[in-house]
Structure formats: structure tokens, C-alpha cells
């Protein structure tokens, strides 16, 4: 993540060159006898037809300069092109007018508005000093029980959605963007923070309109579409209300541009969060397409492949994006990332979900099985996880029973899944009373707790109470993850038991 160094100054006068000595493959061109060029420098080629192509320097060898062109080499010849070396890394211009803009994958306006103004920012950012980070621990209520109660999101976290083709990840991301909010009244200490003082203390009974007003002031969405279909991009643009900046690289846009799209979006997010002090939610979709673009480019470069043809540096490359989330000590804003990726063939061990899971702070995994049962959101609880939840929930943040209750729900659901596996072979006839109770619990958890409406918003208190009631369907001596004290305190919820099919 970039700490924002002073905006880049205008580089030296761009060097213009009129000859390309060699053009190799779809991406690479070579210029020779050209000293004084920096590694990674931005390049602009104006071709014979007058079209502008962007590129960057990828290899310097003596006075030979190799550049990579984002829009490909088709149509380029040795003479007649004008190649400009811009004397700076690839950058984007940013000022506060960026809010509300629609831009292409390289940060150029596609909304008919004026060109971007403001200072230049290097899209690669600068790695953040780990000691400058502030540990994310402000609970974000998304209104989705399966996330809030079981894999809670906190401000400054990177929590991807692992989905598959055909599953409603777009709907879920839109719902999260619409509903996400901070509940400052849950903790008294939060109120003393200046940044939160400005908000009115909300209450569970506040109407939806008031809530969404409160949200508008606090959350800015930066949306990066990486190689998605046109209708997906349109849907996000339509449904995410409030202050949004979108970067759209469509499925038929140049592949190399996809490598820039998330970087431009994150640079914008950093500007909004750490210079303007806003809370930014970044949605990146689809990271699998990004990974494939990286593979395509790496193959064209001749890099040594590792797993499934992806380059060995896929991990470092993904990390250079995902690590650009978080909070900085002494700065009011934050960047929360929700990257979306589709698991090819529903395979969670595929390199892209696998490496993403190693970098991000947990994952929300969607399940085709639940989707087939018409459960929305089809969140597969067991592999889903939020690593920052431990310090973001509990006494003074959500509720003291949150963590142990979550533990117990997970343990019981895992046991219910085991029993379910068993019944597939031996049938339900031979089950013990306890195992039957687990089966019923698993069913209730999926149909009443995980399942909720596409715009239904449950407060964390509602989600937790619902969890307690579901546990009421199990024998008391099974609830070994809960202390006797907690059980006594929640006896009335346990005794009420699971709500009926229609809560």
C-alpha cells in the first residue's frame, strides 16, 4: 500500500523516439541505442493510424530498451511510430473530483466527462512500513448473519469472496456494499474517537432510510471490474448507491490493461482513504481473470511457469494488490477490500484461490450445493473464515458471547455435516437421538440462519440471538464449547428453540 509520498513531479521532458528495432510476439517491442531510460518507465506509442498505446520498460540491457505494450503490437511497424518515454512510472492523476467518475481500466474517463486533473500518483504505490499500520479492529456490520456472526468483517481487512461461475457473488457484494456500517453504540470506547463522534449514534430500531443516510456519509466504494461482462459492470454501477468511483475493464478490453486496473483503483482508494480521510470499500472482480491475464503476459515474456502455467511470482504479485488494504496510525481513513474470484471448476486448491487465501485475512466461500437448495446467500460456513475476527468482536465490540457462540456453532455444524455424510450411506434409521438433533440443527442453520433476503438486514444482536435459539435444538450436554455461565445467561433463548420455517 502506498503511503502517499509527495505527488510525483513532472518528469523530465519526454524522450521521443521514432523507430522500433524489433517487434517480438504480441506484447514486446525493442528499441536500441537509447541511454538514460529508467526501469519500469511509462511509454506511450502513437501508431501510424494516430492511435495511442501504453506500455512500460521491462528490461534494460546496455543501451537496448525492451518495452511491453498493453494494447499489443498488432499493426506496429519498424518506422513511422512515435514512442515517447515519459520519464516516470505509470501514474494516475487524482484529486477530489474523482468521486462519482466512471473510468476505463487504465484510469481514463469513459463517462464523457473532462480528463482527470490533479497530481500524479505512481500506480504501484509504496510498500507500507508494517510499523505504520494500525491494527484493524472496528467491527463492520454487514447485516448478513453468516458473515457478521461467523466470519466478521472489520475495517481495514481484506476479505475475498471465493465463488464460482453461476453463483450470486455479485448480488452478495452489492448487498455488502449497501448494508455495511459501523455500530459505534456497541462499544463505549469507540465513541470517544473523533472520527466516529461525527456520526449519530444509531439504534437497532432506526429506519432503513435513516440508516442508509448515515452510511452515505461514511463509506465510499471504489469498484474495479477486471475483464467482466458488460452487464455485470452495468449492474454494479446501477446498484451501488452513494459515492463511487468505478474502473471498468471489460472482457474484450486489452488483456495487459487488466494488470493495471486494480492498481489504478487501489491508488485511488489510497488517495481517498489516507489523504481525504474517507472509509473506502474496494470491490475487485474478478481476480481469477486478473490471474489469467498475468499468466498470459508471463507466458508471452517467456517466464518460467510454476503451477498450472502461472508464473512463480503470482503470490508476490497478488500480495502487492491485497496488501494495499488497512489503516495507518494517525490517519482517519481506511481501506477495506472485498476481492471476488471465481474458482475454476469449483476447485479451492486452484492456484488463484489458494494463493489468495494465503494472503488475505480470511475468505467467504460460496457453495453450489446451498445455491441449488435456493439458499441465499449460499455461504459455505466451514471453509469461510475471518482472521481478524478474534480482535474485532466480543465484549465492547459486539457482544461478550460472540466468540464462544461462534465456536459452538461451527463445532456443531461440523458435527452435523459428519452425521449427514454418514446418513448418505447408512440412512437415518439407525441414528441416535443426538445425531438426529444434529441433523435438524444443520438443516435449521442453513435454512434459517444462513438464508436471508437479498436486501434483508439483520443486526448483529438478531444474528447472535438466532444462533442461540438454533443451539436450543441440541442436548445441553453437547454444548461443550460454551461455559456454564454463558449457558445460564442465555437459557431463555435456548429454551425458545429454533424458530419455525418462517421466522
Amino acid at each position: 500500500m502506498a503511503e502517499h509520498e509527495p505527488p510525483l513531479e513532472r518528469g523530465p521532458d519526454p524522450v521521443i523516439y521514432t523507430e522500433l528495432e524489433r517487434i517480438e510476439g504480441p506484447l514486446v517491442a525493442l528499441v536500441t541505442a537509447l541511454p538514460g531510460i529508467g526501469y519500469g518507465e511509462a511509454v506511450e506509442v502513437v501508431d501510424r493510424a494516430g492511435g495511442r498505446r501504453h506500455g512500460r520498460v521491462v528490461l534494460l540491457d546496455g543501451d537496448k530498451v525492451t518495452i511491453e505494450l498493453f494494447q499489443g503490437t498488432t499493426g506496429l511497424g519498424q518506422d513511422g511510430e512515435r514512442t515517447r518515454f515519459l520519464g516516470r512510472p505509470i501514474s494516475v492523476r487524482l484529486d477530489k473530483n474523482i468521486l462519482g467518475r466512471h473510468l476505463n481500466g487504465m484510469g481514463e474517463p469513459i463517462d464523457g466527462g473532462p480528463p482527470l486533473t490533479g497530481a500524479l500518483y505512481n500506480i504501484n504505490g509504496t510498500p507500507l512500513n508494517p510499523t505504520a499500520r494500525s491494527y484493524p479492529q472496528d467491527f463492520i456490520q454487514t447485516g448478513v448473519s453468516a458473515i457478521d456472526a461467523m466470519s466478521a468483517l472489520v475495517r481495514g481487512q481484506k476479505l475475498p469472496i471465493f465463488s464460482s461461475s453461476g453463483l450470486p457473488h455479485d448480488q452478495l457484494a452489492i448487498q455488502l456494499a449497501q448494508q455495511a456500517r459501523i455500530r459505534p453504540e456497541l462499544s463505549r470506547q469507540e465513541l470517544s474517537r473523533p472520527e466516529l463522534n461525527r456520526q449519530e449514534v444509531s439504534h437497532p430500531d432506526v429506519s432503513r432510510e435513516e440508516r442508509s443516510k448515515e452510511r452515505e456519509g461514511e463509506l465510499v466504494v471504489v469498484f474495479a471490474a477486471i475483464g467482466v461482462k458488460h452487464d455485470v459492470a452495468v449492474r454494479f454501477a446501477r446498484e451501488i448507491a452513494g459515492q463511487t468511483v468505478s474502473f471498468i475493464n471489460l472482457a474484450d478490453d486489452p488483456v495487459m490493461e487488466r494488470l493495471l486496473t486494480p492498481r489504478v483503483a487501489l491508488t485511488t482508494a489510497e488517495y481517498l482513504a489516507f489523504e481525504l480521510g474517507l472509509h473506502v470499500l474496494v470491490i475487485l472482480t474478478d481476480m481469477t481473470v486478473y490471474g489469467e491475464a498475468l499468466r498470459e503476459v508471463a507466458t508471452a515474456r517467456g517466464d518460467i511457469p510454476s503451477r498450472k502455467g502461472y508464473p512463480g511470482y503470482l503470490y508476490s504479485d497478488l500480495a502487492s494488490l491485497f496488501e494495499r488494504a488497512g489503516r495507518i496510525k494517525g490517519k482517519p481513513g481506511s481501506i477495506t477490500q472485498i476481492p471476488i474470484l471465481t474458482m475454476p471448476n469449483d476447485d479451492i486448491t486452484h492456484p488463484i484461490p489458494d494463493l489468495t487465501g494465503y494472503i488475505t485475512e480470511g475468505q467467504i466461500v460460496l457453495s453450489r450445493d446451498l445455491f441449488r437448495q435456493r439458499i441465499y446467500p449460499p455461504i459455505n460456513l466451514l471453509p469461510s473464515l475471518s482472521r481478524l475476527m478474534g480482535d474485532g468482536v466480543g465484549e465492547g465490540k459486539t457482544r461478550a458471547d460472540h466468540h464462544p457462540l461462534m465456536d459452538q456453532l461451527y463445532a456443531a455444524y461440523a458435527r452435523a455435516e459428519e452425521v449427514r455424510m454418514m446418513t448418505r450411506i447408512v440412512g437415518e434409521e439407525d441414528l441416535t437421538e443426538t445425531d438426529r438433533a444434529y441433523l435438524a440443527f444443520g438443516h435449521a442453520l442453513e435454512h434459517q440462519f444462513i438464508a436471508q433476503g437479498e436486501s434483508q438486514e439483520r443486526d448483529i444482536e438478531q444474528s447472535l440471538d438466532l444462533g442461540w435459539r438454533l443451539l436450543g435444538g441440541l442436548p445441553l450436554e453437547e454444548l461443550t464449547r460454551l461455559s456454564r455461565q454463558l449457558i445460564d445467561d442465555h437459557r431463555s433463548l435456548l429454551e425458545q428453540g429454533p424458530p419455525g420455517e418462517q421466522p
Partner: protein
Amino acid sequence: MSAHTTQISGPLVVCDHPAEFAMGDRVAVGDVGLVGEVIRITPHACYLQVYEDTTELKVGEPVTGSGGALSVELGPGLLASVFDGIQRPLELLRERAGDGIQRGIQAPALDRTRRWTFEPALKQGAAVNGGAVLGQVKETPAITHKILLPPHLNGTLATIADRGEYCLEEPIASVRDAGGETHPVYMFQRWPVRIRRPVSERLSPDTPLVTGQRVIDTLFPIAKGGSAAMPGGFGTGKTVTQHNLAKWCDADVIIYIGCGERGNEITGVLQDFPQLRDPRTERPLIERTVMIANTSNMPVAAREASIYTGITIAEYFRDQGLDVALLADSTSRWAEALREISGRLEEMPAEEGFPAYLPSRTAEFYERAGKVRTLAGETGSLTAIGAVSPPGGDFSEPVTLHTQRFVKAFWMLDRNLAYARFFPAIHPLDSYSEYAGELAQWWQNLEQTWHEDRSALVELLLEADKLKGVVRIMGEEGLSERQRKMLLAERVIKEGFLQQSAFSPNDRFASPQKQAALLSVIMGQVRRLLGDETPAAQATRHFQLDALIRLKDEQSSKEIEAIRAWPNTNPR
């Protein structure tokens, strides 16, 4: 004749005038002085691995050698500090350059201005050999830092400073060698990271490193001076387990290496460690900890170096006669950094693109662990515990396999346990420790029935695992009453003994006494359960098994008698 860059390809830079450099030399590259290391020398070119981003570097910029290999500074000021992979002090960098890590920024690893109270241990005229203890500094309330003579210096002590306050740049002694030459000695020394520090003798590990985690200490223990690896897919709790070991293990000094991992995790440690207290000294944990943080977005070449930087600092504390635990999370990222550099050097790849020297580098790293007699004649140990992140959770990949060959304890993290939020998710059957036999006597001295109880526990787990296979095909109807009760017993063992919550104030750390007492109480009840006629359906209630499972969370390590007295301590 000075050298200049001739070729730039990411972190690999080539310069001319190779005669000016030696392999492994630390170099400053370009006008801003990026830190690099010489990794190949050919007749006309010298190849450099650069530890910082090379964007904007140009051909023709100068390259200068520092005249020495990539080294670390060793002396007072290491503890409670956070360094990057090449030992730049991150907190100081932040003060000087802001929140981002700027390219080419330099700062001494150890604070030169801070004054330390030096207490001499030797007198003028004493004969001294390398590694001798010249004196000491109380670095933190928890750790007394011994000031050592650099390993290759022998002679007589020409001068030694009196007790008093000195900063690192003031010599505190001088040594006259056999040739009559006098060498000043400071409170700190430098050591090249890729070379192991000498010891007088290697000893066999025979004392457990008590981690406070029952599944490790009781089932798969590690000795002080041992080596262990912890492979696990993402989400199986590698990092949390590493953090728990860093928090609660009974080493004197902890070296924690965040190698290519998440920035927020380092921040979490930095937030927790000043507040958490070492159960033995009651001092904040940060006072015994050195952190190396080279997060995943920091340059990949420095990630490769971070492992060596960490282990060299660990050896230095070991040389003071301390027990040091080094935790590296994750060694897979280090191997990937090796692969990336190797690829740019166009070396022939072996398995999955990794270079052929991956096994030997892995072996070299883990062999730097050990229990030793130091040059000064004291006993010290260095325990190395590496996390491994196998792609796709597949334990047959090269890094896991090569690591497995060079460590003696192997803690396999299991995805299904993690899904049920059963932590530590160390698989109780697939994991192993070759130290178990060597350390049994230590436990036997603590608790007479320990060996017997532990064997019974392991047998029961094995037997129950077979029964579960039967249940999966035939249902519980296929089992006898006794077999059903064995499954109940297995559950008590897993949930009441092996599972241990990092969030449980009474149980996040379990002393060996608590572990032994709990083992004895649980196995006693299991024997009664299995030896009794009560049908399985009533057994949970009759034997209060749910209460037995909660015992671990209800009684802390201070309440051994209450644990032994169970079920009479049971409040129900």
C-alpha cells in the same frame, strides 16, 4: 575504475568491472544506493540481487561495494525491535521517511546514540579467546545481554572499561593479539548472515521446549535445540499457532520472522506483545522478542535474506548461553523467493520451478538449530520452528517434502479440524515427533503415570479412528456398547485435552503440571468409562463427560490441586 549498471531486469541487476567484487558482497546500487548482494561473477559481468524495488534505475548508474558480505549488527538494542529482511530498523525508518518504505533509505540497525550500562566481567590482562564474555548489559528487565568478544579474536585484554554508561560507538575494551596488534572491541559486532556462528561443541537436545500447548508438549514435543516444521493449507491456523508458541514457549529469547506474510499480522503482534506477559518472568513479552518483518508486499529478494538475518541474530543470543526459539512464518515464501531469483538467473529448474539447491539450502537452515556448548563454555540452544505453506494444501510438494527430511518434529495442520474450529488443528495421528522418546524421562519425573497415560491416549485415538471407519459404512448400529463408549472417550480426549483455545484466559497456556494432571484425570475417567457397564447412551451424563471437557477452561495452570480433585471441584 568504478562499476556501473549494464542490465536491469526486476531485482536482478548486472554491472561491469566484476573484479572489484567478491561473491556475497553487499553493494549499493544506483544513485539512490539500493541495497544488493553479489550472486554471480562472470569474466565481464557481475550479477547482483537487489533487495529493493528497481523501478527508475537506469543503465550506467554507479555500483559500489561495501567491502564485506551481507551482515547483521549484533549487540544491545536488538530486543523489542522490528527489522526488515536486511535488518533495517522499521520504526526508525518510519520516523525518518514516513509511512511507506522509501527506496535507498538507510539507517543503522542498532541505535548508536542510546547509552547502555556496561558491567565488566573480566579484568585487564586476562587471556581471552573468541566468544569470551567481557561483561554484560541489562538490555530489558527480562534479559541480561552478555557482551561477547567476536569469535575470531584471541589475545590478552589490553584495556576494559569500568562499569558505566556507554554508547555502541565507544570501545569498551581492547585486545592485543599474538602478533602484538591491538584491536578495539565494541558492545556490538557484525556477522555475515549466510555463515553459521562457531560453537565449541554440539550437544544432544534433552530438555523439552515447553510450549504450553498440550497437543505439542504431550503428543509431539520439541526439544530445546530441536527443529520442527508445521505444514498447513491456508486457514488451518499456522500463524495463530506460531503466535501462540512465540507467546508462551519457555525460551529466553524469541526471534519471530514474518517472511512474506501479512502486514496486519505483524501489527497484531506489535500490539499484543507489549501487553501480554511472559508466564515465567511476568514481564511484557516484547522484552524478549526480536521481530523480522518482511511482509508479502516488500521486495522479494529481502524476503530470501530475512530467514538468514533472523537465524544469525538467534545464534548470537544462543552464544550468550540463552535458550532461543526462532519462529519462521513462512519458509515456503522464502523458497519461492529463491525460485524467483533463480528463474531470473536462468538456472535450470528442478521440481516445480524450484532450483536444484532447494534441499541443500533447507538443510543448511535447519542445521543451524541445535543445543550447543558456546565458545565461552556455557550451554545455549537454538530451536527452529518453520511454518510451511504447501500450495493447495498438498503435502507432496517440494518445500514440504524437503523440509520434512531435515526436521525431527512434524506438526501437520488439518483442514477438517480447522473447519470445525478445533485448534490447534495439529492432526493427532498424522503428526509425529522424534523427540518424544528422548523427552519421556523428563515428563516421567514430573508425573509417575505420565508414560502409561500418554500411551493409553495414543492407542485409544488409533482404535477410535478405526471404529469411525466402521461407523462410516455401517452406522453406529454396527458397534458394541464398549466400542461406542470408545468413541465417547475419543471425544473427551480431543475436546477436553487436545483442543486448546487461544482465547481462553485459563487455558491459552497450560503448564507441564497442568498438562500432566489433566492427562491423568481424563485417562482415569476414560478407564472407568470403558470398564463400566453403563450403556453408552447414558454415559455422558453418568460420567459427567461434558463437565470433564470443560475442566481445562475452568481451572488455570495455578489450580493443579483442583484439577486433580475433579469431579469434587465440579461446581455442578
